[in-house]
């Protein structure tokens, strides 16, 4: 059962990912991406990382995708089709990506992974939250604080980029 779900999710991921990067309608592209992200969230549920799945859904589906759609609507004529790269270029890049993927996969498949037995480690949201705020071994308070600075910086950055008063002179 889980297996089948996994395959279905995988199929969704791959197909919609491809669709997303090839679609000529930008809004569709965004929506396909949303599907992929949701599938990924499903996958997280599947392996019992509910917290992560939740974040995936809230931050990505709820945040980033909305941001995308918002900006697309803001600056794009949704009905117009996107330009595509020339065929030769697509083939070239496709080949390169295939080679890359093939290479990576061949290395991965050749590697003997030793799969561990399921441990008792809790993946409860509460435990994860505590871990996030602990400053001892295995505590993640430091990255947590730093990422807040990062978010602050990104915010400041986004603001100042947008801040410039529109003048008549164009460079």
């Amino acid at each position: 059962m889980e297996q089948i779900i996994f395959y279905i999710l995988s199929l969704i991921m791959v197909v919609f990912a491809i669709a997303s990067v090839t679609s000529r309608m930008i809004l569709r592209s965004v929506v396909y991406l949303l599907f992929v992200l949701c599938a990924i969230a499903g996958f997280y549920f599947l392996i019992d990382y509910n917290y992560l799945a939740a974040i995936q859904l809230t931050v990505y589906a709820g945040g980033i995708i909305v941001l995308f759609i918002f900006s697309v609507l803001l600056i794009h004529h949704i009905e117009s089709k996107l330009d595509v790269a020339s065929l030769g270029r697509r083939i070239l890049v496709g080949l390169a990506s295939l080679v890359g993927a093939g290479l990576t996969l061949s290395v991965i498949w050749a590697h003997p992974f030793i799969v561990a037995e399921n441990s008792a480690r809790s993946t409860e949201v509460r435990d994860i939250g505590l871990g996030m705020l602990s400053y001892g071994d295995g505590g993640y308070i430091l990255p947590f604080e730093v990422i807040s600075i990062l978010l602050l910086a990104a915010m400041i950055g986004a603001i100042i980029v947008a801040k410039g008063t529109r003048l008549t002179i164009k460079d």
Partner: protein
Amino acid sequence: MDFTYTILIPLIPLAVFLILGIGSLKIKENVAGIVGVAGLLTSTILSYYTAFQYFFNVGKVNGIYQTFVEQTRWMNFTDTLHIDMGVLIDPISVMMLVVVSTISLMVHLYSRGYMHGDQGFTRFFAYLSLFSFSMYGLVLATNLFQIYIFWELVGVSSFLLIGYYYTKPSAVAASKKAFIVTRFADFGFLMGILMIGYYTGTFDFMTLNNPTALQDLTSPIMQNAGITFMGFSVITTALVLIFAGGAGKSAMFPLHIWLPDAMEGPTPVSALIHAATMVVAGVYLVARLFPMFYFVEGGIALEVVAYVGGFSSLIAALIALTQHDIKRVLAFSTMSQIGYMMMALGISGYGDVDGLGFTASMFHLFTHAMFKALLFLGAGSVIHAVHSNVLQDMGGLRKYMPITNITFLIAALAIAGVPPFAGFFSKDEILAAAYESNQLLFWVEWVVAGLTAFYMFRLYFGIFWGKDTIYKHTPHESPLSMTLPLMFLAVVSAIAGFVPFSQFISPDLVGYTTHIHMNIAAMSVGVGVLGIAIAWIMYKKETNIADKISSAFGFLYQWTFRKFYIDELYLFITREIIFKRIAQPFAWFDKKVVDGTMNLIGNSTVDASKKIKGLQSGKVQDYAFAFISGVVIIVMVFIYFMN
């Protein structure tokens, strides 16, 4: 007896040179003349004093002339090889001192008149002093390297003096030619010196010329004489190379081409350098190394000397027949006479009477210096009066210039070998020596004697007799300052033959007695008189015989007139081959190929930079593609090829 003071003989002219040279723009003509003459007079007196002391007082011990050497270390090469500077007093060097001093003094005196009023008067005297210094140094040299050093210095003084009229293109060309040709010869000389130095371990004349060592096959010199180099023993090769140096300076065939052109210099210079002293340096050099030449490998090198000398004298005499420029005639005559001396050295033996050739050569050097200097000075006097060098512009001058006429005649008779003038005695000895050892050379020289008489009198009659030329300015006799040296030299030319030379100078330093060889004397005088007679017929009065003959032998005439086209050959080699075919391509090669390669490296870097600019396309996705390709390629390389 201490001969150290002789070092002053060269040093005084050097001092004079420095004074006049540095102040050449400031010192007045009078002062320069006086300083120059006074300096050389001192040297001359010292030379005479030395000669007197040496020959008559202290030189001879037990019948053998001693060699006195005073020297000091100048530079070290290796533990054994070094250059010394000093004086070497032996018969030939003392004899040369006398010759150089005498002629130089005369020329100094003469030049005061001849060069009077010339802008570069001081400079001229400075050069003369430099030359005197160098020549003295050469004569007194104690070793090969010292002689080479002064050899070069006389070369350069000769260059400076030939190019004295430096605004005249022909003089410039002549001076260059003289220097370069002799320099080329010196290349051989230097190689010879290097070989001698390397194989014998010394440059010192005393060691090299030691007859006992030379005859001892185990001595270092003779041992190395066994080492062969291109078919000859190294020492023989070295000697031939050294002779090449001498041949260059002494204008032996085929290195003679500079001498006629050197007549572009002021006439006193021709008299001093290109007639009496410097050009005989080659003869002196061979004489200086005579024991080596004689003993090493049975004298193969000496034979070369003999034949080169003989051939040169013939060639020169033939060319002299047809030249129009009186100084050139004299120049070829000089070459011819030096050929005599060389030949004489070449056929000479070593001990006692066998050494006649050597003695005769030195004797002829001595007498020739006197009468040839006289001829040149006389010619100078004529040129001074006529303002031309060319025979056709002259004629009938005897009326205007009596003293010059007489002195010139004496000199001409002397060179023609008419007794009792000096030339007769020395030439007679040479021919006698040749007769003893090499018949072929003897007959050649006999013919040359006749030719000499002919062309000298062609000259004489052409100048002083012949047609009565109308002159723009009436010629007049030269001032006393010029005629006095003429007269002095005339006297010497007339009587010098009676000096018993063989008593003083011989290869083994032991004096011996010679006699006049009557039969040979008769033959030589005969042919000389014949030559004079023909000249009398052809040139005493203005006739057209000469033209007829020359047109009859048109081809031969052209050849001799053109100096056998040797100049043209040299010109062809230098202009066409060395300059155009070698130097030009080298310059081209350097500019295009060598430099081109360097520039190419630079340019191709810049080109490469231009070619790859497309990589930086400005498209962020291209960059991403490069990024990913880079990763993929690196991964492939490291996982599949290097692991």
